[in-house]
C-alpha cells in the first residue's frame, strides 16, 4: 500500500475535526471568543492548504499505486472542506483565495482523474453537487451586533456556492438532470454536522 494513503488519511481525520469547528462558528450559539475563532480559522487554513498541496504534488507513479477504499471519499472531503471555508469566509479577499484554491484543486483532480479512479469519483461528485448549489448551503442570520462579520447586510444571508461566483461550464459529459441522487450519500449528509 502506497504511503500516500497515510497522509491522505491523516488529512481526512484532521479535516473531520476542523469542519465541525468551522461549521459551528456559522451556527448558533454564537461564539464570542475571538482568539479561539482565530485559532480555528488558522488551523483550518493551514490544513486545507497542506491537503490540497499534497494532492497536487502527486505524480503519475503515485496515482497508479494502490489507494485504499476510502480514497474517493477523502479526495472529495478535501474539496468539500475548501467550499466550507469559502462560504464562511470573513473577507472578500479570503473568499477569493478559497475560490481560487477550490478551482485549482478541482482542475488538478480532473486532470489526474484519467489515471486515478478515486480522483475521478471525487471530481465528479464535487462538481455535481456544486453545480446544483447543494454544497454547503448555509443560512446565516446576521445581526448588527455580531462580531463575526460575514459579508452581508443584516438579515438572512444565504451562502451557497454559486453565489460566490463559481460556475462550471464544463461538465465533461456529465448530465446533471440524470444524476442518481441516491448515490450521493457522502456529502449530502455532511451539512447536517
Amino acid at each position: 500500500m502506497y504511503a500516500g494513503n497515510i497522509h491522505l488519511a491523516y488529512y481526512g481525520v484532521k479535516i473531520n475535526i476542523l469542519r465541525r469547528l468551522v461549521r459551528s462558528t456559522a451556527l448558533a450559539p454564537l461564539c464570542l471568543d475571538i482568539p479561539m475563532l482565530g485559532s480555528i480559522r488558522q488551523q483550518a487554513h493551514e490544513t486545507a492548504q497542506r491537503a490540497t498541496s499534497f494532492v497536487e504534488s502527486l505524480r503519475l507513479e503515485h496515482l497508479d499505486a494502490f489507494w485504499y477504499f476510502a480514497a474517493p471519499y477523502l479526495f472529495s472531503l478535501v474539496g468539500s472542506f475548501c467550499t466550507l471555508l469559502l462560504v464562511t469566509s470573513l473577507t472578500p479577499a479570503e473568499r477569493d483565495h478559497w475560490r481560487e484554491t477550490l478551482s485549482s484543486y478541482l482542475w488538478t483532480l480532473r486532470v489526474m482523474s484519467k489515471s486515478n479512479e478515486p480522483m475521478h469519483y471525487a471530481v465528479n461528485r464535487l462538481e455535481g453537487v456544486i453545480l446544483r448549489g447543494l454544497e454547503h448551503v448555509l443560512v446565516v442570520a446576521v445581526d448588527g451586533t455580531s462580531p463575526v462579520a460575514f459579508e452581508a447586510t443584516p438579515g438572512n444571508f444565504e451562502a451557497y456556492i454559486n453565489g460566490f461566483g463559481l460556475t462550471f461550464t464544463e461538465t465533461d459529459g456529465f448530465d446533471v438532470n440524470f444524476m442518481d441522487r441516491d448515490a450521493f450519500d457522502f456529502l449530502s449528509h455532511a451539512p447536517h454536522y
Partner: protein
Amino acid sequence: MEKYTKSYRCIDAPLLGAVYLNAINWWFYDSNLSNQPAIDVTNLRRLTLQAIQSSYHRPRLSSIEAVLLLLQCKPEDPLNPDHTFAWGLTAQALSVGEACGLHLDASDWAIPIWERKLRKRLSWALYMQDIWTALAHGRPTHISEDDWAVRDLDQDDFLERDRLQTEGKQFLYMVTLSKTLYLVVKRFYTQKSTALQDTVELFAVAEPILASLDSWYTTLPSPLTMDHLPPRQLYSNGT
C-alpha cells in the same frame, strides 16, 4: 504466499477471487497479460462474493481476509458506487469476525504463533474497515470499545520478511490513526454528538485530539514520509 507458490489450488476460493479482483487493476503492467483480453470481472466478482458468503456457514480466517480484500477493490460502478451494499458487507464481516473471536485477545490461546499474529492483524483490519466506512458513508460504527479486547499491534506481529517492512509499518501507523478516528467519530459524529454546535465546547473536545494527531504525524518514520518516493515497482496488493 508460500502456499500460492505450490499451487493456486492451495488457496481458499474466496480469497483467491478477491486477490485476483484487486490485481486486475494492474493487468496491463504485466508483460504476459497486457496483450490478452482482460477476464470477465463481473462474473469473477459474483463468484467471489458467492464463495465468501457460502464460507460464512463455517467461516475461516481466510473468509474474513477475502471480504476485506473484496471491499478494497474498485466498485462495479465507480462513479455510482453501491454504498449501502458495501456497508452491509462490512457489518456482516464484522459480525462473522466476532463469531471467529476476532474481537477478543487471542494472545493466550492454544494456537500456533503465526495464527495469533494473523488474528491480530485481521482484527485490526476489520476495525479499520468499519470505522473508515462508517465515516465515509455517514453511518454509525459497530465497534464498541467495551467489546474490543484486541491488544495493540507491534512490529512482532508482522512476518519477518524484508519486503514487508515498510508495509508492516504502514499498517501499524494506519491502525493508530484509525483509533484516533474512532475517537473523532464518537465525539463528533454520533447522532447525539452532532447536535452540539457550541464552538467553545467543541473546541475543548477537539484540542487534545488535534494535538495528539499532530504529534502522531511527526512520528511517521522515514519510509512513510512524503519525500520518500516509491520504488519503480508498483505496489499491486493491499495489505
